[in-house]
């Protein structure tokens, strides 16, 4: 191609055309590499992700994610809030798994303070986090399938997800940004109606998962779009820092719930699902398996739920009950201190990681002994997993990139924070 033709075609198409051969040996049939912008307003990028993709024909030679479109400065905001107020911002970065985010933050603060929530609170946390994993996987399954042409999946998945949001609403008053799990316990005990709804949900859910499998697992179109696509070896997954389903889908059995138990997870029996396939289909199978295990954990938690309070009995950290405010001067003072100044963990730092639906979600807190955190760092699974997308996509077709981003399951709010 002459320079004049390149310029003309660039002007017509709006894409950058580089001269063939400039990128080493990756020269296609026509001898040219096309650089295209995939996103940020592309419907299959799960948010506002922009990928700069170098194409040789339809084959991907380079993928460069460009992020930051959803950056809201959550870590900076958290530094301006009191310790107990930060819970509210943790809901909002990974908006598909607010409860896991709450839990990681709550556990980190509790470790700094040197306290532990009562058993009933820990068990309620487990139930809510597993419900959250289900709802997040359901959104993943629905949206990833719709991108591969399985339109009806979206309806089925959102049907069940809506029940989970209903459970969130019943227990916390909010459907999505629940802020239910807080340092020192949970917002409130579950209502009788919650247990009723949960029982119905736990009984029906395995049948629904069978239903999804009927539609997808042996579907020839789905298989041909997923099998052998987006290969990631176990060593690569570790080297790239991938966690969660991305790591387990490559045959590495690592799950923080089992390997570094937190909250009450050491009291539950469950299998850590892995897949040796290392491709998109393996990650699909693995998430289906994880959904079954989540239902199993919830079943155990409902059956063995311990009694007792759901909050710490520590007036320096938890507000006194409403009725005490009318009779006890001390309660009024505690209430006033807690809601004006808050509490102050001793100086130090802590890293607490939990297994969210996307992988390792960690919170690193630094306390300088005052009532506001010195530093709050969210180690988000999506941010790290997104870096593995290039490795998975190299050499694939551009259409496969959809399936690859889909099974990486990144939430852009979580990437950008």
């Amino acid at each position, binding site marked *: 191609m002459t320079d004049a033709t390149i310029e003309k075609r660039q002007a017509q198409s709006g894409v950058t055309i580089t001269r063939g051969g400039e990128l080493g040996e990756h020269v296609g049939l026509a001898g040219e590499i096309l650089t295209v912008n995939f996103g940020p307003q592309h419907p299959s990028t799960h948010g506002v992700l922009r990928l700069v993709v170098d194409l040789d024909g339809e084959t991907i030679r380079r993928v460069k994610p460009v992020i930051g479109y959803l950056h809201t400065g959550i870590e900076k905001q958290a530094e301006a809030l009191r310790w107990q107020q930060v819970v509210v911002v943790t809901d909002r970065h990974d908006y598909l798994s607010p409860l896991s985010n709450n839990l990681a933050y709550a556990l980190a603060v509790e470790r700094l303070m040197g306290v532990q929530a009562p058993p009933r609170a820990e068990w309620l946390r487990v139930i809510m986090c597993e419900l959250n994993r289900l709802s997040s996987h359901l959104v993943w399954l629905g949206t990833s399938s719709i991108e591969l042409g399985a339109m009806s999946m979206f309806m089925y998945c959102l049907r069940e997800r809506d029940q989970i949001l209903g459970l969130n609403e019943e227990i916390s008053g909010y459907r999505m940004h629940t802020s239910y799990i807080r340092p020192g316990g949970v917002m409130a005990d579950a209502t009788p109606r919650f247990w009723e709804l949960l029982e119905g949900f736990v009984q029906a859910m395995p049948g629904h998962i069978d239903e999804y499998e009927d539609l997808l697992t042996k579907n020839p179109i789905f298989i041909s779009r997923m099998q052998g696509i987006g290969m990631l070896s176990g060593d690569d997954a*570790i080297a790239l820092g991938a966690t969660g389903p991305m790591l387990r889908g490559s045959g590495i059995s690592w799950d923080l719930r089992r390997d570094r138990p937190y909250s009450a997870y050491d009291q539950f029996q469950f299998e850590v699902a892995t897949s040796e396939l290392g491709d998109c289909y393996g990650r699909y199978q693995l998430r289906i398996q994880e959904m079954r295990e989540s239902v199993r954990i919830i079943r155990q938690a409902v059956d063995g739920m311990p009694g007792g309070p759901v909050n710490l009995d520590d007036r320096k950290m938890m507000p006194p009950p409403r009725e005490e405010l009318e009779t006890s001067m001390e309660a009024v003072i505690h209430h006033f201190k807690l809601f004006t100044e808050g509490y102050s963990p001793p100086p130090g*730092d802590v890293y607490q990681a939990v297994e969210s639906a996307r992988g390792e979600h960690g919170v*690193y807190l630094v306390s300088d002994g005052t009532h506001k955190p010195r530093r709050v760092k969210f180690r988000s699974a999506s941010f790290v997993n997104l870096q593995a997308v290039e490795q998975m996509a190299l050499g694939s077709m551009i259409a496969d990139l959809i399936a690859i981003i889909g099974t990486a399951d990144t939430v852009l709010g979580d990437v950008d924070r």
Partner: protein
Amino acid sequence: MSSLEIPGGVLERGVSAGDDWIRVPREGILAALTHLQERGYRSLCFLTAVDHLATPTVQPPAERFEVVYQLRNLASGHQLRVRVPVPESDARVPSAHRIFKPANWDERETWDLFGIVFDGHPELTRILLPDDWEGHPLRRDFPVGGEPVDFSEDHELWQTAPSEA
């Protein structure tokens, strides 16, 4: 943990809220990370920085910044935090992206938000903020809400109170 010998020396070691940590000098950080990786710490959970500007703690750190590496041994599950003190006047650290691949984006983020330079990084550009952003917002002297409002014709009116009620 205490048996771990680090080439380049360890300035200090301790436990904070149950987490083991070591502090190593800036010159020895790459050797320390390589050594730890060979000893099974194959996973870098995250890398970030902390700004200790005007910290009210009894013994304030000697340097303003601290770069923090959180490592994990996947076989034993043990976690180790490696801290590197970084002076404000010379805020630079050697890049660890060759040892741990995920450090690439973490270092870009730390440069973006703290203004700490990672020597040897292949592409040290802003990652979360726009390329033309001024300042590094996670520094403690960067004000919250101090940025100008884009896309508003009379943003000066929005930001200041009316002169008369």
